């Protein structure tokens, strides 16, 4: 467990993809079966434990700590598992066991026996703290005799077999035995929150690197393998045969686009590119193929290679072909693509019910084909793949799967016009779900990753509004100890004079340096606390103005202001601007009105919105 804990701890600090692969490969190389197999399962998200939920951890901590101190600590650290890992101490987590004062007790007169100020090099007597090596070898921690540090495989087995009532004691025993990093890893593991920037694909890449094997080969055999993956490791290390049960529907890493900047167009020849709408949905890969028994295996993958088939049974059922398609998940009702907000409502639900499927039918709008009938098409030019794709979609004839149309254009100016007004350029009412254009070189093969040049994304100009920060909440992941999610409002007239009404929430768009300043602003200007949420001071002459960029507006009965923003983000922090000069609700209502007639009111003048 400790080795695995230190691996994921290090990976968490490591930004470089190749270094992450190296760290994982090094771990797999030097860790025996089945330990490394369970580690691979943990890294690929293949483990899940029924009873071990955050509640259990909170309960354990409540037994051992002062609730006020736990609350303050959790509020500070932000992350439950990390808070518990740091605070955990057996038997009394608040106070070290009383120790004999080693330097003969405190002097009665501070003047009488303070030693002369000797230089450090002479080696002043060491201060005695719990964080120092004990002077005479006595144990520091009050745990008593060395407890047994569990192996990862023991933890996995224990979690799988222990009954619900035994579990708290078992987890507590492990926590007592592990060091801080070990406790953190254990808690992350059992709460399925092991977010360390490693995708299933990256972990498989590390496995592949143990031998001279392509990651795609690992993807092909992955189907049908179970933790702890002994036969997989044996195969990549050249000690065993290639595992049976080749995956008939493997994931293939997607090709990604770079954002295009205005100055790029001078270098791009419009004749070499095709254009499509950029859909405001979720990128998916739909793959179907036949296993050796001739059964059709159908899978849906996220763009990082996670198998998400279970979430979309309606779409899985429609995969009646043998091919790998790249496309966008959308919700389509009565032939009309719904906005991202609608899609979000389906994604937010955990359980997939017939009612939900009927209300939010999943739809795949395809823009590429990677393989067909066992033939890899990725080396073909985009224009040729497009022909294969059009022909296949025509043959499938499933209502839930269609083609992302191309946008005809002769010059970049023409395309700019279409991007400004997708409804007028053929998208009709689907324009709500369009967030710009994609440019794809007609001769480009399908290259995994984000190669610069062949594919570009050209997003619509955002709207801008000056709003006032009202509430802040802690973020997630590396931002969990910072107030990084901000609810902001604009002014509207009320019976009692102007008041701020919340219009949205944003948690991105600022730099790390700006985040530190925003976090400090929140902590220094808190006027109210509601659980994890803090209300900050605001009013006509106090408060912080945030210039917020957003992609669009919708009417919303759920919001007090009656509007909901799409993709709001902090464009600029207006430390200089008095809160009284922030925008009024009327500007949003104007945007809404014009938006409904299909026009973008601020057009190409992004700076105009909030000034």
């Amino acid at each position, binding site marked *: 467990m400790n080795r695995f804990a230190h691996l994921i701890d290090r990976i968490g*600090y490591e930004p470089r993809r190749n270094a992450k692969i190296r760290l994982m490969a090094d771990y797999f190389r030097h860790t025996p079966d089945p330990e490394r197999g369970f580690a691979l399962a943990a890294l690929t998200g293949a483990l899940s434990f029924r009873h071990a939920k955050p509640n259990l951890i909170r309960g354990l901590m409540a037994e051992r700590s002062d609730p006020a101190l736990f609350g303050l600590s959790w509020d500070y650290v932000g992350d439950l598992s990390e808070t518990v890992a740091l605070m955990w101490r057996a038997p009394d987590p608040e106070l070290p066991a009383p120790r004999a004062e080693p330097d003969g007790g405190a002097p*009665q007169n501070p003047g009488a026996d303070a030693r002369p100020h000797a230089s*450090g090099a002479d080696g002043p007597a060491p*201060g005695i703290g*719990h964080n120092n090596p004990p002077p005479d070898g006595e144990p520091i921690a009050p745990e008593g005799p060395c407890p047994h540090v569990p192996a990862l495989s023991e933890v996995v087995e224990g979690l799988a077999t222990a009954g619900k009532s035994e579990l708290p004691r078992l987890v507590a025993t492990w926590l007592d035995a592990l060091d801080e990093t070990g406790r953190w890893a254990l808690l992350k593991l059992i709460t399925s929150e092991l977010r360390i920037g490693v995708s299933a694909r990256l972990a498989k890449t590390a496995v592949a690197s143990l031998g001279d094997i392509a990651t795609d080969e690992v993807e092909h055999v992955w189907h049908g393998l179970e933790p702890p993956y002994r036969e997989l490791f044996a195969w990549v290390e050249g000690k065993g045969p290639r595992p049976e049960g080749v995956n008939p529907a493997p994931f293939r890493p997607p090709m990604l686009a770079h954002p295009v900047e205005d100055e790029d167009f001078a270098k791009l020849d419009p004749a070499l590119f095709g254009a499509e709408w950029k859909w405001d949905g979720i990128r998916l890969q739909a793959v179907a193929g036949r296993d050796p028994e001739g059964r059709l295996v159908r899978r849906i993958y996220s763009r990082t290679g996670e198998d998400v088939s279970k979430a979309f049974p309606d779409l899985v059922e429609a995969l009646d072909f043998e091919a790998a398609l790249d496309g966008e998940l959308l919700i389509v009702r009565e032939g009309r693509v719904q906005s991202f907000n609608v899609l979000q409502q389906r994604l937010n639900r955990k359980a997939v019910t017939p009612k939900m499927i009927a209300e939010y039918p999943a739809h795949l709008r395809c823009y590429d084909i990677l393989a067909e009938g066992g033939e890899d098409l990725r080396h073909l030019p985009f224009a040729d793949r497009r022909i294969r794709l059009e022909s296949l979609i025509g043959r499938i004839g499933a209502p839930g799967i269609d083609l992302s149309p191309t946008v005809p254009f002769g010059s970049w100016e023409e395309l700019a016009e279409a991007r400004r007004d997708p409804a007028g350029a053929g998208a009709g009412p689907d324009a709500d779900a369009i967030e710009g254009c994609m440019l794809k070189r007609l001769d480009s093969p399908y290259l995994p990753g984000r190669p610069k040049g062949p594919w570009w994304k050209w997003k619509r100009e955002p709207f801008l509004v000056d709003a006032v920060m009202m509430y802040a909440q802690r973020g997630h992941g590396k931002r969990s100890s*910072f107030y990084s999610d901000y609810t902001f409002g604009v002014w509207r007239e009320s019976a009692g004079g102007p008041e701020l009404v919340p219009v949205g929430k944003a948690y991105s768009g600022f730099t*790390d340096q700006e985040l530190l300043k925003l976090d400090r602003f929140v902590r220094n200007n808190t006027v109210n606390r509601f659980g994890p949420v803090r209300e900050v001071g605001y009013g006509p002459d106090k408060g912080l103005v945030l210039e917020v960029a957003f992609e669009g507006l919708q009417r919303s009965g759920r919001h007090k202001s009656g509007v909901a923003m799409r993709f709001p983000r902090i464009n600029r922090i207006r430390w200089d601007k008095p809160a009284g000069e922030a925008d009024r609700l009327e500007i949003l209502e104007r945007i809404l009105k014009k938006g409904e007639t299909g026009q973008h009111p601020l057009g190409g003048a992004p700076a105009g919105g909030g000034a």
Partner: protein
Amino acid sequence: MSGMATRAADLLTLTPQGLYCPGGDFHVDPTRPVPRALITHGHSDHARSGHGHVMATAETLGIMAVRYGADFAGATQTAELGEVVRIGEVTVTFVPAGHVLGSAQIVIEHGKCRLVVSGDYKRGRDPTCLPYRPIPCDVFITEATFGLPVFRHPDARAETDKLIESARLFPERAHIVGAYALGKAQRVMALLREAGYDRPIYLHGAMERLTAFYKDHGVALGETPRVAPDDRAKLAGEIVICPPSAIQDLWARKFPDPVTAFASGWMRVRARARQKGVELPLVISDHCDWDDLCRSILETGAEEVWVTHGQEDALVHWCLSRGIRARPLHMLGYGDEEAEGQAGEAAAGAPDPDGAAADPAAADVAA
């Protein structure tokens, strides 16, 4: 309030400049210029220039002269550790605080009432300064920078061992260690030397003068050459110490594939380390962790505790839950030698806590 507490509140009051003793007509660690200041230690959030008269240990006076120039105050008076000195109606005594070279607690007594202003202090071992001594008192005034039970600093030597191990593991990469220029940098160097690390330890220009000051005061730190701009590319496998603000700077990127390390108590919280882009967090602090704050309060036997700044709520709660009267002072302007360094920038308008060469770009040119 008991009679004792009332007297303590008269003995030391809170003013916009900081803690003030009317009986002796002096401030302790004032944040703005005052006629007479007693200063606990040389960090810039405690030791500011421009006071009429400054009383501090010889080392603290020396550090202030290094940072602000010889004329940093109208007049100075050296405080001898342990010597009881009368000022007006009160007596004061300076006692080691274990924080940085020259750091002291200030004991203020009047009649039977004894109050200890501990300044910044720590109990962890530090070969570069005298250890903290617990002083029995009626009122103990403490900071609470790491005043939450999530802060438990590990053994500092284990942290420098991590650094040495990483330098051994990645001989093709330079290890850039962010550390506060006063105290932390020298402590890290001294711990590396204790562990037997005998390669030169390279210094950013901003660390030089204070490191020389430590060496002049007998702290053995071995060979510590300054990094010459052109040499950066040649320092693969070496350890380089720089101000925290420089680790993410262009200056640091000229080293071969640098490993970014940062020595600070804040590194205990992963989100804080990641936020700063640190790859090798070293949990080394010159402040007390939670256990040591609690232990120190108990050891003074104080009936009342005032918490100046930091995570005041938790420490006050802990005191109250143990029957010790406690109140937060919510003092502003302190704690920045770590907090600002962590933000990678000097507080706007405040002197740079890391001393010389505040601007990493300037340091880049000057180094």
